[in-house]
């Protein structure tokens, strides 16, 4: 499955990194968030467990808020609000 980035609505974006392994999910998440405006929300879908800790720490460091975290059968769906 290829990486997918799309606009879902005003200030809402989706980054689908399913199938991707380190370092792709964390790196593409960082690059996506850098381009978004403060207050925009990125819905991130990934299935690489190792990336979860890195993405959470990255958001904490730069002040982006993870507003929801779901995990089902190895599939992570997170919503990140740009700080």
């Amino acid at each position, binding site marked *: 499955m290829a990486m997918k980035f799309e606009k879902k609505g005003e200030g809402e974006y989706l980054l689908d990194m399913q199938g991707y392994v380190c370092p792709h999910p964390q*790196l593409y998440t960082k690059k996506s968030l850098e381009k978004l405006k403060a207050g925009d929300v990125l819905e991130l879908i990934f*299935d690489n467990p190792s990336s979860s*800790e890195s993405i959470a*720490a990255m958001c904490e460091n730069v002040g982006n808020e993870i507003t929801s975290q779901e995990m089902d*059968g190895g599939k992570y769906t997170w919503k990140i609000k740009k700080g």
Partner: protein
Amino acid sequence: MDAKEKKNELWAFGIVGFFILVSVWTYSLSEYYVYLIAYLWFGFVYGMALQYGRFCFSSAFRDLFAVGVPRMAVGIMIATILFAFVASIITAMGLSTFHPAPTSVHSAIGGLIFGIGMVFSGGCASGSLYKSGEGNGPAMIVILSISLTQATFVDIGGVFNKFVPASWAKSALEKGLPDSITVSDGWVDQYLAGYVWNQPVTTFAKMLGMENTSFAGAMMGDFLVGVVAPALLLLTVVYFFWGRAGFRKKTIKQKGAMTFKDEFTGFWVMMMASKRTAIAGLVLGVACGMQMFVMRGLRLKFGINNAGEILHNLGSDFGLSVRGTVFDPGYWYVTTQEAQWVGWALHKLGWNNMDNIFFGYVNGIPNPLFNPADWMSIALIGGAAVMALLHNEFKWKAPTLELALWAALGGFFMGIGSRLALGCNIGAFFVRVANGDPSGWLFGVGMILGAYIGVKIFNIYAERRMAREMEACGL
């Protein structure tokens, strides 16, 4: 518990049951198999700890440079200090299985190539094993690529002999190796016998004029000077460049200013930022030290110095080196046994690879089913799979062409780097640093620099890719 969780739990029990069955069955055949069983269960513990803490040396330095996250660099230093503490006690008792490696610039060069490779592949040598246990297809390609590259690289001769300096060729011939080892035909052979073996072998204790096996040498020289001091220095650098900014921002927002005392609090917050990683570091550090103690105890029990003697006693003589030895580090190691299984397979296909130093003189190519170090890696994958299954994190990910290419390329670089440095992030860095061997830090410096270069290259690729995607959304 839903059906999927129940199925995962059954798989986890199945894997544990398989390893128990292997242990009980082999022990019933011969007490000698305890040696293999010990490797197996330490590997299992490593796998569980690695998966639980998402413990990957690649991520330690890659995530620092790529996304500014220090948690794994911190976890690795915690594990190294704990391993070093246990290892120092065992060394002082004269029960260590560790042998320092030759120290020279070759460790740093090997580390640099390895570091670039681990960024491309998305996981270091040990990381690729545990990620395979999570169902990660690209990680399996990394393992295959590392294994194939090493097994081929150690035997290349012919046109590559022209790239061997004359001094290496002369020095290699002077080593008086057995006739079965064609030392004049093979780049790695002449590199090893003509260069690496001529380099000094030392430890921090010896450099300070102390005996390794003395309490002062092990604790002061190897542990405090060789591990704790450089690890604290590295952690301080990591804190000031990557850990401090976020904490400072929060502190100033809450208190208006950042005091000197707050710096210590910030340092501690960075150390404890990821409990999972810190716990994994603790388990790995203690388990690594204990493995050295247990393997040494088993050698004393069986009156042996190398597992080759056990294989001989079990009637499995195939693939022993010309000296009757096989790869038997007595501690955690990854890459050599990966080279061995491919070396064994290539030999079965008709490739005579027992005329080189790596296989024919030192490590052998025993049947993987009887290779203790191989079982450590197999059980590591199993331990990681059990942990992933129990946390509902196991998911099969088939490699896409894009990821397969990155994995193969990264594995290639790691294979070359690990043979040049005589080990990977575990054997050449983690174990050596923890045992006061300065060549471990040289590998580390090269690996960190390699990770930095790897991130720079990877960033160019990711930047272009992401820009295309975002342009389509008007960003």
